[in-house]
Structure formats: C-alpha cells, structure tokens
C-alpha cells in the first residue's frame, strides 16, 4: 500500500489517545516507530457498542493465547470485527488488559497512583466521542506489540518486548468498527521499554 494514498496518516504521541470509525473493508496499520511500545486498543461494532471485542471468545475460537497474523478479533456475537492481515512483530497480547491508576497501585504501590494510565485515556476518549460510550464499555483490549507469555504451569509474565523499531501490524475491518487507542504511558514495567514512544497510524479506505 502506498503511504501517500492513505486517508489518515498520523503520529500518535506517547501517552495520547485516538478514536476512529473504521469502515468495513478499510485497513489500519499501526507502526511501532521506536520499538517496544504497547498500543492498547479497544474495538466496537460501530452500530452497536454493546457488541464489542471479546478477548476470551477470540482466544478460545483460535485455540491459542496470543494474537498474530490470521487472528480474527471476535465481538461478543462471535463474528469478527477486524482481522490481522499483516504482522511483522509476530505476537500480541490480549490477556494483560490496560493499565489503570487503581491497578498501578496494586501492582507497584501507592507512589504510582497519580501516574498517567491507559484506562484514563480510554475514558477521556469515550467522553469526547460521546454517543453514550462510558466506563461500562471499557472491557477487553488488545495490547499490540506487548509480550505477556503464559506458562503450562499456569503462570503469566510481563516480558521484554519482541517488537523493534518499524515493526507494524495491519488490521482489516470486517464490518464498520469503532477503534479506541491508548498509546500506553506505563513507566513501571518493560512493556514500553520504560520509555513510552510515539506510534504511526495509517488508514486506507476500502479498495
């Protein structure tokens, strides 16, 4: 795809949010410009926000714990919202959730309470978007470029990222899909290499 032909081409700063309604057939590319940057992302059926992305349905139906090329991201109705049609990273998390002030306190201690967090970004994006979108709608998300390996013994770990500068993932919209992104501001674990960085977002309309 020619980058010059993209309908949208924006750089999303570290810690910033982005909301976009992706028409069916459109393509969204998320580029990890500097490497090891978690991109927390929510998906909704654009015509029924209650029918949103479901991580557990997606993982069960694909039979594995990580997202990658070929993954179909299912809504609660069991049908895909978007599909991963290109992926130069190789593995993306959808079990680690999005950071919040409250989970930061649990995980890292009281001194992190006032730190910037993804769920605040999502709430701000939802409020700005309006149309009834609120906290009840903020559920399972994808963490693109984030590495959260599970173990056969039942463990789960936040590991160093397997992404690198310039790696990207491309999503094809299977229906009109509302996308909310929080470019993760987390400073307390290796998901952003302890230094959140910008990502590039490109959208091509349906051919």
């Amino acid at each position: 795809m020619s980058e010059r032909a993209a309908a949208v081409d924006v750089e999303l700063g570290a810690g910033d949010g982005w909301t976009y309604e992706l028409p069916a057939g459109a393509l969204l590319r998320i580029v990890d410009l500097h490497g090891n940057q978690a991109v927390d992302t929510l998906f909704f059926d654009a015509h029924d926000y209650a029918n949103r992305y479901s991580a557990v349905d997606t993982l069960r139906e694909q039979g594995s714990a990580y997202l990658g090329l070929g993954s179909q991201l299912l809504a609660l109705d069991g049908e895909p919202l978007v599909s991963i049609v290109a992926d130069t990273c190789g593995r993306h998390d959808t079990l680690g959730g999005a950071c919040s002030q409250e989970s930061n306190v649990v995980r890292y201690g009281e001194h992190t309470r006032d730190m910037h967090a993804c769920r605040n970004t999502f709430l701000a994006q939802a409020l700005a978007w309006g149309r009834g979108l609120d906290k009840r709608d903020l559920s399972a998300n994808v963490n693109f470029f984030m590495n959260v390996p599970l173990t056969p013994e039942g463990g789960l770990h936040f590991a160093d990222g397997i992404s690198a500068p310039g790696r990207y993932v491309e999503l094809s919209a299977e229906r009109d899909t509302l996308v909310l992104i929080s470019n993760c501001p987390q400073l307390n674990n290796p998901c952003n290499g302890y230094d959140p960085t910008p990502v590039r977002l490109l959208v091509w309309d349906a051919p």
Partner: protein
Amino acid sequence: MHTHAEAQAPITDPCTNAEASAETHTAILDLVLGAGASFSRVCRRGSALTLVDLEGGANLCALLYRAEDPLERYCMPDTLKAQHVSRLSAGVALYSDMGRVLASIVADSCGWHDTISGHSTPALLAQRWGTRSYQQARNDWRRSARELLLVELAKHGLGPRDLVANINFFTKVAISPEGDFTYTPGHSPAGSSVTLRFELDTLLVLAATPHPLDPQPQFSPRPVGITLEPSAPAGEDDPVRCACPENERGFAASEQTLR
C-alpha cells in the same frame, strides 16, 4: 440443614454449645443449582461460598460485581497480572477493575479453574450439541451460558454491556509452551469443591452449563452444590492476603472502603 442440626442435637449441650453450634453449622444458604440452570445473589463480606461438583464434570460460569456499585466488577486481566497467574486456584484473590479484592479462593480441590476461554453462546451451543426448545423438552431445554447470564444480570438491572470475561469453575484449559489451548477432560471428579470468601459485598452470577470446548458428544450440564456460610474476615496473616505484596495492597483497598 434441619436434618444436620437434628443429627447434632444428641451430642450438643444446649446450655453451653447452642451459640457455638449455630455459628459453626448454620448455613445462610444451602441449595443445589440444577444442571443447565442459573442463579444470582448478593453474598456479603463475612461469608464464604462453597461450590461442589456433585457428579463430576461440571462447569460453572461465574461473574462478580461489587454490590454497592456494580459498575465495579471482576476483572480477569487485573486478577491475572496482579498475581502473575493464568488460572485460578487456592490462594488467588479475585480483583475488581478498581484495584480491590472482591473475593478470595480459600480452598480448592481442583488446582485450576479457567478464566480465559469465555462461555457458550446460542450459536456455539447449536453448533456443538444442537438446540432443544422448551416446547420439545420442557425444563430440559438447552440454554447457552450467554442467555442464562444475561437473564440473571437483568434481574439486577445489568445488561450486555456488563458482560466481561467470566470464571469457569471446575474447568481446565491447558496451555502449551507455544500458547496452544487444550481442554482437559475429567479435570473435576465428583465431589470437587472450591470455596470463595467474600471480602466485599458482591453480586455473584452463576450458570451451570457446559464449557464450549467440552468434547462430550451429548449436551451434559451438571448440578452444582452451593453453600453460603458465615466466615471470619481475612486476618493479618491470611494466606491469600500474604501471597504477594500486590494482594496486601488489594486487601487494604477493599478494607479502606469499610471505614
């Protein structure tokens, strides 16, 4: 419970042991959740719920909401990442999305309860086992977990937007080193049990219906015994509280709301 209390009567001196006996043996609730049925109720802080897989092979879908404000609810990702686990078992706290512990697993004979593979929908049930209507089967009609959970949620003014990743008690979906999922048949023998102690008043929503990966050719829901009993709150040296610094902070956040 009547039968149990009467059986205890001959060895209990009513003058000295009546109060202790009541504390030890009086259940708040004692029932059998029928195969394929659903249930919901508010379970108070200071109580503990024991779930028993009466026949073996049960799957019990569960969702938890803070009774005082159901906008706060069980959060699978926060539960897993706070404790670095991908399954639930004894010693694991069940976190809300607001950094508080709603309930703790204080006893468990299974060692693994799933929370990362969701529940059945009408389409999945029809595809796996076929439909059976009320007209065809009366109360043996087949309802998916999704339908059961939504009806229970609606009893409390909640709806589809409140559906989040659920717990599947008594089910294990094993994870390979590469991350592949495999349903584990026979994981829960008859008599398996798990006990939840509530750290905050919690709306509990349950559906006793097969997991969508259950390979049984016949639709085989199983009944689950449910007993809610008084329970002392978590002490300073409670094993779930002390399992990790994260849990100490999660318990403190729950207890902070009581002041």
